[in-house]
């Protein structure tokens, strides 16, 4: 299951990380090295084993469906790269 240049290109695109063409081959090699080391997991017998997603036993806690915070747009937008009057300013999405 070797990772080739096309796979790196696809994964980088999925992860939204711009990756120059000349970095794809070295990255493929690096990732293959790591994944080859990870392959040893295949040795473990996991038939019938439930995946462990959380070490906290309890289910999701519930709370009253009430507003607990909010109402201060200037606080929310204070770290925005660009904002106007409590709104985030983002690049145009729809052509």
């Amino acid at each position, binding site marked *: 299951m070797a990772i080739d240049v096309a796979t790196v290109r696809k994964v980088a695109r999925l992860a939204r990380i711009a990756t120059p063409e000349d970095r794809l081959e070295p990255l493929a090699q690096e990732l293959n090295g790591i994944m080859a080391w990870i392959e*040893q*997991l295949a040795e473990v017998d996991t038939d019938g084993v439930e995946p462990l997603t959380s070490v906290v036993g309890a289910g999701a806690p519930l709370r009253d469906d009430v507003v607990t915070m909010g109402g201060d747009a200037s606080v929310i937008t204070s770290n925005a790269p660009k904002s106007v009057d409590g709104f985030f300013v983002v*690049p145009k999405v729809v052509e």
Partner: protein
Amino acid sequence: MSTLTSLTLKGAIDGLEAGDFTSVELTTAHIEAIEAARALNAFIVETPEQALSMAAASDARRALGVAGPLDGAPLGIKDLFCTKGVQTTACSNILKGFVPEYESTVTSQLWRDGAVMLGKLNLDQFAMGSSNETSAFGPVTNPWRSTASNKALTPGGSSGGSAAAVAADLCLGATATDTGGSIRQPAAFTGTVGIKPTYGRCSRWGVVAFASSLDQAGPIAKTVEDAALLLTSMCGHDPKDSTSLDVPVPDFTQFVGKSVKGLKIGIPKEYRVDNMPAEIEKLWEDGIAWLKEAGCEIVDISLPHTKYALPAYYIVAPAEASSNLARYDGMRYGLRAQGGNLTEVYENTRAEGFGDEVKRRILIGTYVLSAGYYDAYYLKALKVRRRIAEDFDKAWEKCDAILTPTAPSAAFGLGENSNDPIAMYLNDVFTVTTNLAGLPGLSLPAGLDSNGLPLGLQIIGKPLDEGTVFSVAGAMEKAAGFNAKAARWW
């Protein structure tokens, strides 16, 4: 002044209570120590004015007789904890200039109990690293040096700034976080005490997320008692974190100094790894002897899936990271790069804002979660994770706590492992199992190697049984009599 910075946290609080000195004096001494130690690069943001105003307020509280358990004690805060009004970056470029409008639950509890903030501490970028070299602010240098050379050594990672600052007496204690060993390995490399509590003890709210099912906060401190004091303040239920445990928090300091007579201590045979330095093997034997002497019963146990913990971790953690770090899109906060269209803006922002190790892990995480590989990698890793947790469940039928080395080596040179990701990952071979199983683990300094560098031993406890961990650690600290300090060169 140097006498004030060489105090333990407990010693300092006792001195404040006795009126031997004020928090302003204590804090000033630490501010001066930080200024004189910039060569270590442990603090990336210094907040002396805020520290002095918090110290003055503390002195006023103490004069009124309403001092909290940590009142007036100056601490360092790992730059993964959001601090209101003080830059929080996770040592990344993507968050440079980010000034939170809110305070993390853990730090708010420290301030509630009267502690004073000295500033923000360096770490591996987004806590991804074992040597502090992935920080966008440059690596921290370990205050410890080998007697054989003046080479700059790593303080470990990711909480390298926290560990170095405590070891160099720049603060009385520090916050840290641990996803695969990031509290305990740096503690071992710097001759300090660090504990990762049971998953869910400390709220993750306001802590920059890396791998949410593994991340836990904890302290790095000078002594076991100091660590217990800090952890008691840091723990507690928080409705803002859905995985926060709604259980009472005992005063952990009560367990330090308690007899360990009759406790069963498990020694896992699988932790005798290939190429482990003889000195670490010897230290482990010393630890066993100390506990026997203190009346513990030593039992051999088996944790058969130990060798699969790191490979499983390097699927689970990157998978969660790729999801958690998707939020850095350049829209609501952080860096925004230019691009011809929205996708290019995202891609360029993340290419410029993330370092190489962070990108590597996001790519691995995206790959193992992508269509066609999810079952083969991610689901498989979660099943192996259960096997690892079951290993511990079985062990607890035979013992009350487990003793292991903390790390497979002493501190290594900066740059030595940075070109080999897997060699770097292997630093966490003894610590990562407790993250996967959610168990408490504490590292304490137990001796020096032949080059005069500190080595640590780890105590692993049952879920929510930090008390026993502290009792065992207290007994070992007493037996080890470790009181070496890094010789000052900075």
